[in-house]
């Protein structure tokens, strides 16, 4: 009995995939579970497993080509089977794995958690845990299990945020490059973001002397070296717990204010940009954040992040300081309501007590969605960030 | 084939031996009396089956064995453990459930074990130990050595399946096992004539072409001689024997059962007490000038002191620790 090899939905937001490489050739023997191809999705390179056994009789889509999710890309069958009907008229999927296309939330008054509803929400223990980890409200997820039970695929199917982007510079002489999946997604998202969201920008200049001293002495304490970025992540996370109005999502029907802070940190990779998320950053030690951010960045650069590792952020941070940018404005990552752009730390002449002195200074620029955050709200948040960086003990005050 | 055995004559050269078995029987008697008291005081729990009146059987039989022979018994086995050499302290502490007991408190009255003395239990299912004893005989035969295994069981056990299955195989395979039936006439409250189609237990051996003897279980020397014959048969000729020792227990089946009443009369009990095995030996020894009344009293005082010591030791010994709950479920 022939097995249809389909382009599978390998990430929550994937609509099409590019065959990066076939790992088996026509005629090879294949067992269920064997990895037969590498597929480039909108986020990462994923392995495609055979779901049947036999010989890989025909490859219908060559390496390098892209097809939409659900299309037939190859056929596995016994040597003697007649597969002409399959290859001559390639059909869209026979029963495919459950579709993981994004779905919009149901129109409900905002409820922080399902305990406030009358009656219990039926959900599998796994679905509950996943929803909790992703900051999703079970009450808003439609369940497709028996009796309306919410199960894993239902949680996977809810919308998840994509990554922040910054515009790349164009070369003067040119060469045409077909955008990879990641680049295509960035492009699409940019248009979706900068267009409809009413951005405004707040800049703050922060004195970094005490932060620099604190970092130096902390790095004497143990093996985990912490960077300025790790400190900024921690400070932003704690400040957001004091300014929850900036730790929010805008959706068509409600604004969701999060209790926990999940910081999406922008990581530059060869093909573009991706934002791994550090969850519960407000609770984690700087040490833990340092280790996690390093690990996530490494895996991001190797394109080995799982979808639930780059979705679900409540606030984004983008740092171009290491590339000598003194200040920039970043584009918000919807449905988040804000993003903080960090510039380089440089020595500047500063007036203090009537005299000029040289101090290390850093400029940060917050982009805010005016539908969620007003000028004063954003400013007060930035004030707290500034205060904590200029006086690090204020983090635990 | 039944052989009635008359009591052997005394031999002055064997005075030490007579003192030995006298001491053993009296120790058992004093021990069991105190165990009964301790049970009534709540220091011994569960079931407690006393051997009082039957001392001649365990002592007379075990005296004919070597240290490397195997002994198996039922749940009425305090006497057999003591006769085999287990210390009175270890037995009493086990009855009290203390960790210093011979089974570390895990066995209690019905599951005394002393592997060093080859006393292998202490079995509570009627007839359970019968095939097990034959199994030890099988092992001896496999190894080609000359030990014997002995199985003590009550007369009610001769009606259970394992008795028939075992005696058949022991005779068929010629195992060096001695099956010693301690016939005290009553199961819990059922007289043998009400439960056995064939009252003469030794007679059953002919079903298996097995040698058998009936012996007066109140006469320790008679028991001893019968056992010596069986031991020789097993050790030398690798043949099993069924011995029926007719004896009597003074107490109820267990401490929780009536001493007399529905199932036997007080008169019968008194009649049997007149044939007390310890008294009988004592009288014979004194009459033959091999023991004085003084010596007898001394011995008694000494043994009572031993039992008192065992009681005190058991009172003072600790219980097993809670962690011991999970020990010894599996061997390494």
């Amino acid at each position, binding site marked *: 009995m022939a097995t249809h090899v389909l382009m599978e939905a390998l990430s929550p937001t994937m609509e099409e995939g590019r065959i990066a490489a076939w790992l088996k050739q026509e005629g090879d023997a294949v067992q269920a579970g064997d990895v037969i191809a590498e597929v480039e999705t909108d986020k990462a390179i994923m392995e495609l497993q055979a*779901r*049947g056994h036999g010989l890989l009789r025909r490859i219908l889509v060559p390496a390098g080509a892209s097809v939409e999710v659900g299309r037939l890309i190859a056929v596995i069958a016994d040597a003697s089977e007649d597969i002409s009907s399959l290859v001559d008229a390639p059909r869209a999927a026979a029963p495919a794995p459950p579709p993981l296309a994004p779905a919009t939330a149901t129109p409900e008054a905002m409820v922080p958690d399902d305990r406030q509803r009358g009656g219990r929400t039926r959900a599998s223990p796994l679905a509950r*845990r996943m929803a909790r980890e992703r900051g999703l409200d079970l009450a808003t997820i439609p369940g497709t299990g028996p009796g309306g039970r919410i199960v894993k695929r239902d949680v996977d199917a809810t919308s998840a945020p994509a990554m922040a982007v910054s515009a790349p510079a164009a070369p003067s002489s040119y060469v045409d490059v077909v955008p990879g999946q990641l680049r295509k997604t960035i492009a699409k998202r940019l248009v979706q973001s900068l267009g409809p969201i009413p951005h405004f920008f707040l800049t703050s200049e922060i004195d970094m002397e005490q932060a620099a001293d604190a970092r130096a002495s902390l790095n004497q304490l143990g093996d985990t070296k912490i960077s300025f970025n790790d400190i900024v992540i921690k400070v932003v996370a704690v400040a957001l717990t004091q300014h929850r109005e900036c730790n929010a999502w805008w959706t068509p029907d409600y604004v969701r204010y999060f209790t926990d802070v999940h910081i999406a940190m922008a990581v530059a990779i060869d093909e573009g940009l991706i934002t791994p998320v550090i969850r519960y950053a407000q609770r984690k030690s700087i040490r833990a954040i340092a280790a996690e951010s390093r690990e996530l960045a490494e895996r991001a650069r190797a394109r080995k992040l799982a979808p639930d590792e780059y979705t679900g952020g409540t606030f984004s941070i983008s740092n171009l300081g290491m590339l000598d940018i003194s200040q920039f404005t970043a584009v918000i990552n919807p449905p988040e309501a804000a993003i903080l752009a960090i510039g380089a730390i440089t020595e500047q002449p500063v007036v203090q007590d009537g005299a000029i002195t040289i101090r290390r200074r850093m400029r940060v620029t917050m982009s805010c969605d005016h539908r969620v955050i007003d000028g004063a709200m954003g400013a007060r948040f930035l004030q707290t960030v500034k205060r904590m960086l200029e006086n690090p003990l204020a983090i635990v005050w | 084939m039944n052989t009635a055995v008359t009591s052997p004559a005394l031999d002055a050269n064997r005075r030490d031996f007579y003192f030995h078995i006298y001491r053993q029987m009296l120790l058992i008697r004093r021990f069991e009396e105190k165990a009964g008291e301790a049970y009534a005081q709540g220091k011994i729990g569960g079931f407690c089956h006393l051997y009082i009146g039957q001392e001649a059987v365990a002592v007379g039989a075990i005296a004919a064995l070597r240290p490397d022979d195997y002994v198996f018994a039922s749940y009425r086995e305090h006497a057999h453990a003591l006769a085999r050499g287990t210390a009175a302290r270890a037995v009493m502490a086990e009855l009290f459930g203390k960790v210093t007991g011979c089974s570390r408190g895990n066995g209690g009255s019905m599951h005394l*074990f002393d592997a060093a003395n080859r006393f292998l239990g202490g079995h*509570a299912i009627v007839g359970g130990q019968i*095939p097990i004893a*034959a*199994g030890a005989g099988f092992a001896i035969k*496999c190894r080609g050595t000359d030990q014997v295994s002995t199985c003590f069981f009550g007369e009610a056990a001769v009606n259970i399946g394992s008795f028939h299955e*075992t005696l058949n195989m022991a005779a068929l395979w010629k195992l060096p096992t001695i099956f010693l039936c301690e016939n005290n006439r009553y199961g819990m409250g059922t007289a043998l004539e009400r439960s056995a189609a064939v009252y003469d237990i030794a007679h059953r051996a002919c079903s298996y072409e097995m040698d058998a003897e009936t012996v007066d279980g109140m006469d320790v020397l008679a028991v001893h001689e019968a056992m010596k014959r069986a031991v020789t048969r097993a050790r030398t000729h690798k043949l099993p024997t069924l011995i029926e020792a007719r004896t009597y227990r003074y107490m109820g089946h267990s401490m929780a059962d009536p001493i007399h009443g529905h199932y036997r009369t007080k008169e019968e009990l008194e009649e049997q007490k007149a044939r007390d095995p310890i008294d009988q030996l004592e009288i014979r020894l004194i009459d033959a000038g091999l023991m004085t009344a003084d010596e007898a009293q001394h011995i008694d005082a000494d043994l009572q002191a031993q039992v008192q010591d065992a009681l005190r030791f058991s009172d003072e010994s600790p219980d097993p620790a809670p962690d011991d709950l999970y020990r010894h479920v599996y061997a390494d």
Partner: protein
Amino acid sequence: MPTITYREALNHALREEMARDPSVFLMGEEVGVYQGAYKVSRGMLETFGESRVVDTPIAELGFTGIGVGAAMAGMRPVIEFMTWNFALLAIDQIVNSAAKMLYMSGGQVPMPMVFRGPGGAALQLGAQHSQAFDSWFAHIPGLKVVAPATPYDAKGLLKSAIRDNNPVVFLEGEMLYNVKGDVPDEEYTIPLGAADRKREGTDVTLVCHSKTVALSLKVADQLATEMGIAAEVLDLRTLRPLDVDAILSSVRKTHRGVVVEEGWPFCGIGAQVVDEIQRAAFDDLDAPILRVTQADVPMSYNKQLERLAKPQPQAVIEAVKRVTYRED
């Protein structure tokens, strides 16, 4: 590597262990002159002689007790029950003597012995000859219970069982004796207490043992081909002690479980497996764990009814569909 039958694998294991250790002997009905009721002990009387391959009368309680006594006196008996149905007659010695001797004696008397024979249903043998008592014995502390599914596992596990210093209940199957598989000539053992992943998968864990392993593997093939469901097949191999870690790590990966067992449903092995999973992996479950068992009836003689009573592939597929929420 040689391909041999399950029966031959057991024969080799017995021979190797008896050659290695003179205290090991085999005892049971028809094991010697008749060459074994199911030919597991073929040729062994000729090799080892009648003191080590012992034909018994029909007296399960008696010869099992004899095995117990021999173990107490330092031997390592292998007691064969012609089928496990007959072991009911000997259960007093297995449970009250063998399982408990070490504990009752405060650690003085270990019981190194193996009780083995075929269990569970075969083909139209009727109610009294078709019983799987796996959970009866797995219930008893002091016993170990093993149920190999393949020739490779059977040989390795029987050798370990014989070398184990505890009483081991070793469950074979008339329907397994002819199964063929690769078994190396070289010496090897398989430790008791270790499950074996017979097939890797990601969507659901099929927990099985003995005859249900082959069934589960076949079903897994069908699930993959027809429904794109990648089932993981976990062969328990030992029922007591249960390899709980293997079960949990598989279910944590697949989030769904179906236990496939050949005994009756009430208090069967699967009930224990389900309890272990729900206690320790509650938050990893996307669906309740389901069980496919024999029907809760004595086994009929009739061929059709017997087939209906045994765990069916379709029942396993239905269970998998329910736990994966597939309507198709």
